């Protein structure tokens, strides 16, 4: 790309400066160029659209959301990375975009008239308006030593197969560095350099692979080592000389290439230095913007991924719109038609504006949202019309949507959905909030009592909203606190009694493994588990023995309140857990006043004592102190459904993996041989369908969903970005080529004629440009008879259990073996 104007001589002046040439910045610049507005597009890297350029070679770039029309002079539709970039390169020239490469913006100062931008090169640029479109990737950290920009010193690796017979120094002990080094080692001499004495920031699997590679002498590694400088040499054999400081002294390494993978600086600090404010400390928070994408700094606009719009098409639409906004022209947002369609469900609403106003008036929870926020919220939500008697969701369903009542009344049934409803909810109220917190089954059934209009919003949408709007979170918390208490213990309490009971109640969080109280502590209250789970244990013969396991939606700590003694058990969070604590004095007072409550807590207490006595002896021998450590360490407590393999009857036939592959496009989503083992019970690497799936956060198209029955699955909108692979702590998501043209192997052909692979084997290599998308266990939710792995195990070694059943199983096994 050529530089279209020369700086240096006098400070440059533009009407609009656009920072970042990703999809959003390019689109904005193209629109400005098209309108003949003086502009400049500043890009830190040496090529435009750097984020897209970093995608894996040949990656199919998806154009999600499919329903959203594209509004930009630049073109974009689903296609390979290469074809899209080539087209954009053409269009940059065609529209005459004033693009400057290698122009990293470091400072933005607001002046009386417009802004002054400071570049890393020391140059300055003046502009009336600034559009910030730098995405979320952050700035790549460079080596920060002399020679960091020499040719052959690089900060990314597209295709490891490109290099052969070279000496390559990889700098960086994080996952990317280690992965790159491992990928290069087959064809090259690789030296990995890590600043730390250990690989602390590295996934288990990578670490294991690295250790093996080092042991086998396939590559080298220097620990506690810092890079000092890089020089180019006239030596043909080794064009670079890298100097490093090792614990033993300085070492000079002649090499062909240096690949530094030092991560990126997240853009938040940079933004704050520009004066942009964030609504909360939450790292996921997005700067607060007006409906015209303007930030709290007047004249400074933010678009694209940075503004909370994680997909390319949205980013491009915003690029177009922001220019229109700056020009002060009314612009109908690209999503207007979609919203109009949504509001068509309400007969008396004729325009989107009217619809938005109605929602604000009717639903107090959403009243404080900005227009932009409300529009987005509506785009992702649905308006549902219900007739009296229609069921919204049932007790024990696994749905996680959140509902606001726009109109009408719903009935809530806590236990018996055919009996009289336990209470009602009216226009403006919301429900389903427990789904946001615990990710467990629904605890009530909800039916429409009159004609109703409900606003149904996906869990992710709500979570994003509560992250950025503290007021919304507070409102939900307050209501949810009361409802939790009411559901757990307070069905017989009057509204006034309930109010009294929850006054001074506290939410408290515990990290996995943290002790909530010790045996012998003073009893301070009754604890309700909102999310996570808690193991109750006792010291018996000097060992911690688990007595029971309290999951979300249940309470514990009643024993000490009833007997009036200190705690006789130890309570420990089995996973990250949130509890509600009701003050001991208030609970005691309520028990006196309300015989129902007393009876309920007493019954619970007696039941617990009975249960503990019956199991205690077995459990003692079951070495459950170790079991609980195992559950906590391996995060089993946060699972809803774990695959176990009882190795005492597993014949290692691999039929479970073959079954998975055969029913899932040739790729097994479980690995029988890896995964922790407890007492001959293996937890193979396979999705546990976590209560709070870590994989779900940060999925740009929201492709990871939870079905009514609880399976966490990835739908076909996955764009293959790999975020979930990184976010899952259990390493069970992989990027795999799916190729619908590929036929599964035929059983009869193989059996009778020996043709083709055995069923369950690989169905031939996927075609060259098959796209890679994220795949994981979906519990065979589309197969009528349930998970193929379990059904195909000839001996019954493979089973699926909940964490509670894991405990039972371990104990049962122990009792069987003796």
């Amino acid at each position, binding site marked *: 790309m050529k530089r279209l104007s020369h700086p240096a001589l006098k400070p440059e002046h533009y009407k609009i400066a656009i920072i970042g040439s990703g999809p959003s910045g390019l689109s904005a610049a193209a629109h400005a160029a098209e309108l003949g507005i003086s502009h400049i597009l500043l890009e830190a890297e040496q090529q435009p659209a750097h984020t897209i350029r970093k995608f894996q070679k040949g990656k199919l770039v998806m154009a999600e959301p499919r329903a959203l029309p594209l509004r930009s002079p630049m073109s974009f539709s689903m296609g390979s990375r290469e074809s899209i970039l080539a087209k954009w390169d053409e269009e940059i020239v065609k529209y005459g975009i004033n693009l400057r490469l290698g122009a990293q913006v470091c400072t933005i100062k607001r002046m009386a008239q417009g802004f002054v931008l400071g570049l890393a090169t020391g140059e300055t640029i003046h502009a009336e308006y600034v559009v910030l479109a730098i995405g979320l990737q952050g700035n790549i950290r460079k080596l920060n030593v002399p020679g960091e920009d020499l040719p052959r010193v690089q900060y990314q690796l597209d295709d490891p197969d490109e290099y052969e017979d070279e000496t390559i120094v990889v700098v960086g002990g994080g996952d990317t560095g280690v992965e790159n080094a491992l990928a290069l080692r087959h064809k090259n001499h690789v030296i990995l350099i890590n600043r730390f004495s250990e690989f602390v920031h590295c996934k288990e699997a990578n670490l294991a692979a690295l250790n*093996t590679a080092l*042991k*086998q*002498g396939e590559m080298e590694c220097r620990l506690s080592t810092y890079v000092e400088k890089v020089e180019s040499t006239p030596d043909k054999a080794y064009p670079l000389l890298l100097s490093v400081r090792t614990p033993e002294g300085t070492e000079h390494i002649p090499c062909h290439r240096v690949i530094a993978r030092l991560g990126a600086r997240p853009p938040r600090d940079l933004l704050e230095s520009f004066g942009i404010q964030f609504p909360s400390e939450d790292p996921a928070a997005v700067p607060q913007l007006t409906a015209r994408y303007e930030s709290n700094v007047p004249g400074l606009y933010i678009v694209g991924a940075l503004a909370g719009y994680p997909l390319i098409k949205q980013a491009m639409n915003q690029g177009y719109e922001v220019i229109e906004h700056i020009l002060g022209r009314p612009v109908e947002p690209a999503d207007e038609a979609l919203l109009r369609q949504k509001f068509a469900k309400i007969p008396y609403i004729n325009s989107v504006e009217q619809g938005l106003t109605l929602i604000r008036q009717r639903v107090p929870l959403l009243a404080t949202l900005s227009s932009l926020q409300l529009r987005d919220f509506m785009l992702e939500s649905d308006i549902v019309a219900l007739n009296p008697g229609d069921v919204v969701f049932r007790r024990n369903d696994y749905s996680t949507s959140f509902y606001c009542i726009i109109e009408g009344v719903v009935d809530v049934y806590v236990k018996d959905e055919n009996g009289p409803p336990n209470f009602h909810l009216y226009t403006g109220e919301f429900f389903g909030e427990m789904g946001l917190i615990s990710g467990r089954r629904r605890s009530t059934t909800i039916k429409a009592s009159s004609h109703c209009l409900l606003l149904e919003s996906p869990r992710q949408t709500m979570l994003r909203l509560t992250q950025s709007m503290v007021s919304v979170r507070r409102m939900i918390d307050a209501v949810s606190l009361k409802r939790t208490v009411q559901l757990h213990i307070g069905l017989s309490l009057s509204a006034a009694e309930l109010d009294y009971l929850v006054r001074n109640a506290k939410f408290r969080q515990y990290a996995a493994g943290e002790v909530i109280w010790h045996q012998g502590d003073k009893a301070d209250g009754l604890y309700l588990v909102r999310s996570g789970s808690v193991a109750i244990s006792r010291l018996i013969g000097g060992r911690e023995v688990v007595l029971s396991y309290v999951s979300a939606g249940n309470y514990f700590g009643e024993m000490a309140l009833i007997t009036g003694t200190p705690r006789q058990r130890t309570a420990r969070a089995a996973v990250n857990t949130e509890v509600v604590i009701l003050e001991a004095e208030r609970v005691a007072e309520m028990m006196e006043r309300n015989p129902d409550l007393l009876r309920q807590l007493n019954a619970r207490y007696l039941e617990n004592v009975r249960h503990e006595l019956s199991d205690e002896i077995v459990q003692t021998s079951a070495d459950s102190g170790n079991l609980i450590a195992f559950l906590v360490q391996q995060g089993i407590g946060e699972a809803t459904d774990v695959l176990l393999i*009882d*190795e*005492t*009857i*597993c*014949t*290692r036939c691999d*039929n479970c993996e*073959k*079954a998975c592959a*055969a*029913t899932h496009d040739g790729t097994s989503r479980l690995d029988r*041989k890896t995964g922790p*083992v407890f007492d*001959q019970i293996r937890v193979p690497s396979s999705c546990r369908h976590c209560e709070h799936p870590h994989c779900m956060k940060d999925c740009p198209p929201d492709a990871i969903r939870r079905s009514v029955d609880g399976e966490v699955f990835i739908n076909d909108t996955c764009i293959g970005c790999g975020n979930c692979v990184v976010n899952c702590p259990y390493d069970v998501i992989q990027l795999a080529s799916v190729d619908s043209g590929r036929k599964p192997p035929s*059983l009869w052909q193989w*059996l009778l004629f020996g043709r083709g692979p*055995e*069923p*369950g084997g690989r169905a031939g290599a996927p075609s060259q440009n098959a796209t890679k998308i994220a795949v994981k266990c979906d519990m065979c939710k589309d*197969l009528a*008879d349930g998970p*193929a792995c*379990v*059904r*195909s*195990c*000839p*001996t*019954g*070694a493979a*089973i699926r259990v909940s964490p509670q*059943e894991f405990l*039972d*199983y371990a*104990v*049962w*096994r122990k009792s069987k073996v003796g």
Partner: protein
Amino acid sequence: MDHQTFVNYKNYRYLKLILWMVLVAIGAYALHQPSFGAYGGTWLGYVLGSLSAAIVLLLLWFGIRKRQYNGIGQLKGWLSAHIYLGAALLVFATLHTGFQFGWNVHTLAYALLVLLVINGFYGVYAYLHFPRMITENLGDDSLQDLLNKIAELDRLARTHALQLPDDINAIVMKACQETKIGGNVLQQLTGRHPDCPTAAAVKVLREYGHDLKFGHPKLYRELYLIMLQKETLVARARRDVMLRSHLEVWLYLHVPLAVALLVALTAHVTAIFFYW
């Protein structure tokens, strides 16, 4: 908690089924008094023969069902039926013969069936017995882990041995290069490697150790330790191979026997209908 395996599937559903069937068959056989004595050609003989043939086909079908990964029912249920119906065959087929044996294709089919059933029983024993031993032997390691550890010890041993006298170096090199884990079928099954170079090296090192005329006692002791560690790892790896072969070996007979039985059975049936 009640856990279902192929043995106790649905509370021994198939065991109960075949016990009833076997009782009825024996009862019928005892009551039935054909004029020419009991043999396959009486009406009861036909009934028992058809039943046995049907069961054989069902058992053969297991090989298919095992690979239909989205087939009906649970595979452990199928295997449960397989082992109990297979065992019942012994009774049905024997009664079917009416104890008339000879040197012919009919008796061949019967003999194959008996072999198959015996072989199958070993299989059940193996499936219930060896998996636990495999895990006990391996602990948290996999076979590959053991091999990696052995390779690492080999590397260490070699660098140590380089600085020691030539004869020691030679034995250690031999142990590094020629120690086999798997070996031929016999070695796999017995787990015995009588002239294992690693064991030999350990033995020699121990004997040499008595007269310390070498200049490197520390190095020598380290080497001895390394080789000892390697010897136990090698033993574990070999035990793994052995246990696995015991777990699997019978199936290499089971399938050919099953195919042979199918052929013999076809001949038996054809012979009866066409060359009466």
